[in-house]
């Protein structure tokens, strides 16, 4: 792992080994619960979670790349580490998710700024190494752009739905994709969130620490607010209905249509055995081939990757979309009929 200076830890606190950091600074968790001066930091940590839960990005005391006062630096890191402790004690996954996401966005801003830093090479170097270490994406500077191998680009961009992320809409040269600092960081956003999230999930849950109870209780109350209820109408979207119709009439459904139908139903929790009979009217039906293909899609065979249902965008280009007003701007057929209450 990269050796980090104080500034860097404050910007990217998730890179630090929490327990080690506390020890190095000469503190134990218990002290934060009892020492009145340190106790303020629990409040700060609580606020940090609150802001994140609200979908906003925590505004730190860091000004530009530096902290106004020396003392503020460890405070930045402590509040992050304590936030994790609080989240673990409270144990609500929805809060952890929101927190990880907000912290990822926060780090994203620093990474972007560091990547575009022209005056300080070392900042840029560090950002590049963070990206390389955490996400195994080798980026390099080339003129005003960062370049990454096409294959790495594809692995990360494949889940983006916006058309500007399609490879054809990128500048590609010499096996490399050209990106701005903003795009570079955007490309690994999801991984950054996932990384922070998994770091928190995998952290050991401490036993309750005296002085932490209040904040933990408040968080438990708060988390109730974020429990989401979704209702599903159970109706299939028009594209899926159409595909089923075609098959039932014994007409030929193109490969892409079968792919859509199978991945959609698999995602809805249907089993391969339940889905297979749908295809039996197809003119070229072969039970063994069908089972093999379905198992493949379900990820129970082959490379083990489970294939997800294509986006509406993709289906439109394949002429498989039969959108009605009920589709209502959703981006994937799986979202059809799910309304947040």
């Amino acid at each position, binding site marked *: 792992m990269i050796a980090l200076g104080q500034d860097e830890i404050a910007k990217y606190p998730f890179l630090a080994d929490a327990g080690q950091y506390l020890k190095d600074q000469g503190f134990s968790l218990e002290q934060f619960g009892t020492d009145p001066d340190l106790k303020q930091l629990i409040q700060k940590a609580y606020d940090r979670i609150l802001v994140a839960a609200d979908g906003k990005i925590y505004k730190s005391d860091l000004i530009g790349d530096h902290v106004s006062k020396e003392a503020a630096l460890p405070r930045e890191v402590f509040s992050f580490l304590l936030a994790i402790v609080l989240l673990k004690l409270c144990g609500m996954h929805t809060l952890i998710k929101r927190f990880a996401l907000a912290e990822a966005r926060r780090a994203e801003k620093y990474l972007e700024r560091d990547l575009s830093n022209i005056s300080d090479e070392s900042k840029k170097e560090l950002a590049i190494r963070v990206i390389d270490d955490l996400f195994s994406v080798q980026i390099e500077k080339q003129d005003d752009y960062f370049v990454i*191998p*096409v294959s790495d680009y*594809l692995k990360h961009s494949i889940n983006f739905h916006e058309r500007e992320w399609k*490879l054809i809409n990128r500048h590609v040269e010499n*096996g490399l994709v050209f990106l701005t600092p903003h795009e570079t960081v955007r490309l690994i956003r999801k991984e950054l969130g996932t990384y922070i999230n998994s770091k928190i999930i995998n952290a050991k849950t401490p036993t309750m620490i005296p002085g932490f109870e209040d904040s933990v209780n408040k968080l438990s109350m708060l988390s109730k607010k974020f429990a989401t209820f979704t209702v599903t109408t159970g109706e299939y979207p028009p594209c899926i209905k159409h595909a089923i119709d075609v098959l039932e009439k014994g007409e030929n459904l193109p490969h892409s249509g079968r792919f859509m139908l199978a991945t959609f139903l698999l995602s809805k929790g249907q089993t391969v055995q339940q889905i297979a009979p749908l295809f039996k009217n197809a003119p070229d039906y072969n039970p063994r081939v069908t089972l093999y293909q379905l198992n*493949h899609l379900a990820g129970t065979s082959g490379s083990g990757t489970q294939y997800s249902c294509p986006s509406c965008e993709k289906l439109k*280009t394949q002429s498989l979309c039969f959108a009605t007003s009920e589709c209502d701007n959703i981006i994937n057929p799986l979202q059809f009929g799910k309304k947040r209450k």
Partner: protein
Amino acid sequence: MQDTDIKFLEDSFKKYYFEHFDLIHVPERTSEREFGFQKFNSGMTRHIQIKDDKELHLLFMQNVPSDVYCSNAYYSFPNLPMNEKDWKEADLIFDIDAKDLNLTCRANHTVSICYECNEISKDSNQCRKCNSTKLEKKSLPCKNCIDQSKIQVERLSEILTNDFAIDKENIHVYFSGNEGFHVYVYNSQFQEIGSRERSELTDYISLRGAIPETFGMRKFKQDRAAFPDFNEKGWKGRFSKYVFGSKSKRSKIITELLANGYSSFQKTLDDVSKNIGVKIDPNVTMDIHRIFRLPGSINSKSGLTKILCTDLTKFDPYSEASFLSDETIEVLANSPIEFKLKNKKFGPYNNEKVTVPTFVAVYMICKKLAKTA
């Protein structure tokens, strides 16, 4: 197919495999690949693991297959069922087939064979004898088909080398043995990418899904300077050359494009894509578990060999991929269309007994246009 035909094909193929085993390219990392084969009039046997040349040779001799296949994927256990194979990586493969090119010549060399009454006629939608519409189509591809496919192969190679920095030595072009080419890419950065990533690559190569902004056209705040330059790398340069034609016309055409507006530009893009996008079959490239005809083996749709093209421009499949013997045989031929093999014209034959070399007889029998007499 009647038994005597099968016997004849098997004998001819066997002779080829005996005499030309050197043409069969044992792919590298042989034991990590899955092999499969088919025999005449029977199903597919797959999930076979082969150690080396010797074992492959044995497979040919023992089974006299009509077709032999090999995976582009590498597995830990290629002989196990699909879900236990443990996929590791796969070479990148592209399929370019004349039948996907919408060529006008096609109608001239396609025959229709009636499933009901076996009547053979020139391309039509209805049997002239019994009016049935259940017809099997067989194409006897012409020089134009091959030339047009070659153009696609060249465009593909250009993109692979320039845009994706793939070494020329790692691109192998094979004649498929029927009416197209298979392009293999070895040792590239794409070995380990999955199916969806490969699909994105095919969209790039066929110039599919581009938005006007990519080529300089904006909805608002239009800007002449945003349009690509003539000598830019990648699709921008190709776009310029195709749309502007020459440097001197660039400015005038940009003015036109801007005047026609954003949605008309999207139509321009569709046109560009149709004309200079490479026509590859995306499903083939996407499929990372497929087994492909083995280089050096015979394609039972034609009796021609899937062979490596070292000099694509000069390559003539109908003389260079035909390896079966010259020994003559009498067949009952019914081919309404003439065709050329080894620089000689054959046909048309109107349900007549003719004596032809083996390679011609096999070609016609494979296309269902002849029977052994």
